[in-house]
């Protein structure tokens, strides 16, 4: 059927580019409008109105913000380590976006006679009739999360300012601590699904009570711990100590201005979208549900994003020692116990 380039049909390349562009645009739009939704939602929750001047219901606010930041002067502090200072926002932003390459947002669809899986890093193998994605999708996401730490460490160090350095250190210590508990919570999913491929993990969560979070009490607790740890990993409230204004001005991005500041801001929101997508994939059944697959997936992700904002409007910030105690003395032993419990459960009710 038609052209072949390097042994693969042309449609393969077209769908690959289309998927990539679609996901990228989706994440960018979600990031832009998450800022609007957050301000609006928290506004209403605190009996305020929120943005309403720019466009109907303030809907053009993100665009106005973007334009404003774009035209601001770019300042590099005189004593800053120039190369690291310039590269840090990129290092923070890129891993946040490329995590989406392995997240399946739907089952296969048929386009021009070809089965196309709705996941960027995967192909449909016609001979064995199954979807081949990279077999280590979850590990890839963990790897990208650990690379994202560098952006913050570098920003904190390169700015050559004490607020930035303290913010950067805090933030990276926090991310590393909670990565551990989040990683252990993911092991629960591996134990039940016996695979590392995200496509297969989602494929076997069909039906409402097939969702991983409803499989057994251990998975339920694990799912909640994973979501909380992820919130801590991406520095969201109530774990947003790196940006504690009263102590640290603005944390690691104190010295940044203009588009570089915007990049950190985008990275933060993109991380939030990624974390919600990963939680949906691992615990909430991915694309399964009453609507068409992609709609289900997007609805679940947006639901979790709403929960993030709700938490932000509700809870005060943790103190630093409380945060570390929660991570190391509560979540880490708890996930270890959950793994043991889950193992026993799987043996008793296979």
């Amino acid at each position: 059927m038609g052209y072949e380039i390097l042994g693969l049909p042309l449609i393969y390349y077209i769908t690959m580019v289309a998927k990539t562009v679609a996901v990228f645009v989706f994440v960018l739009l979600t990031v832009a409008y998450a800022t609007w939704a957050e301000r609006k939602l928290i506004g209403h929750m605190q009996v305020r109105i929120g943005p309403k001047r720019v466009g109907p219901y303030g809907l053009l606010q993100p665009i106005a913000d973007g334009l404003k930041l774009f035209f601001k002067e770019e300042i590099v502090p005189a004593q800053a380590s120039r190369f690291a200072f310039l590269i840090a926002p990129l290092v923070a932003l890129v891993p946040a976006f490329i995590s989406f390459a392995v997240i399946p947002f739907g089952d296969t669809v048929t386009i021009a006679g070809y089965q196309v899986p709705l996941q960027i890093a995967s192909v449909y193998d016609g001979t064995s009739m199954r979807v081949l994605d990279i077999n280590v999708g979850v590990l890839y996401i963990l790897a990208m999360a650990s690379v994202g730490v560098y952006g913050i460490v570098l920003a904190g160090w390169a700015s050559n300012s004490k607020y930035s350095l303290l913010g950067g250190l805090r933030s990276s210590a926090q991310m590393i601590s909670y990565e551990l508990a989040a990683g252990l919570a993911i092991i629960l999913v591996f134990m039940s699904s016996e695979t590392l491929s995200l496509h297969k993990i989602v494929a076997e969560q069909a039906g409402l009570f097939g969702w991983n979070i409803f499989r057994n009490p251990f998975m339920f607790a694990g799912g909640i711990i994973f979501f909380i740890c992820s919130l801590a990993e991406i520095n969201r409230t109530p774990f947003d100590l790196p940006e504690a204004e009263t102590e640290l001005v603005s944390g690691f991005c104190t010295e940044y201005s203009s588009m570089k500041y915007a990049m950190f801001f985008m990275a933060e929101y993109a991380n939030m979208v990624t974390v919600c997508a990963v939680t949906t994939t691992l615990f909430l059944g991915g694309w399964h549900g009453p609507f068409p697959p992609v709609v289900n997936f997007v609805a679940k992700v947006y639901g979790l994003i709403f929960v993030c904002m709700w938490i932000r409007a509700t809870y005060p910030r943790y103190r630093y020692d409380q945060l570390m105690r929660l991570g190391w003395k509560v979540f880490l032993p708890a996930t270890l116990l959950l793994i043991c419990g889950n193992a026993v459960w799987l043996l008793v009710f296979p």
Partner: protein
Amino acid sequence: METLFFFVVAAVAVISGLLVITCKNPINSALSLIMTFFCIATFYVMLNAPFMAAIQVIVYAGAIMVLIVFVIMLLNIRSEAGRRGAHTTLFGSALGIFGLIELLYFLAKGGLTGSRGGLDAKIIEQFGHTELIGRALFTQFLLPFEITSILLLVAIIGAVILAKKNI
């Protein structure tokens, strides 16, 4: 195509490897080392070993290098250039030359590709790469695996004791 890609990645790996030892600022050296680790991870992917690649990034580029960068930042070592002793240089170059000779010898002998573990693409396709590694680790190499874990445990306890004198 794959060969071309290999050469591009290899060039990046070699250049960043050189930058590790030539950069004046230790932070830049550390960053170059991270770049080299990423190139190695890419090679693992090209060798059909995605699990190794992911672990390479998580453990080396993610965990270990973050600690090294932390240490450099907290100790605030600016530039250490020009203060290297003659002994260090001599020892380092001797070690490097020895390693190079060894490498060239084995490459000339062609012994590196000689032994195969009885695995081929078909078996990996059937069982999955991660599953095979797990099976090997927990059956054939269980004792070395457990010894490594005990070694790490000892290191963790040592770190706790060093950091906290009175527990």
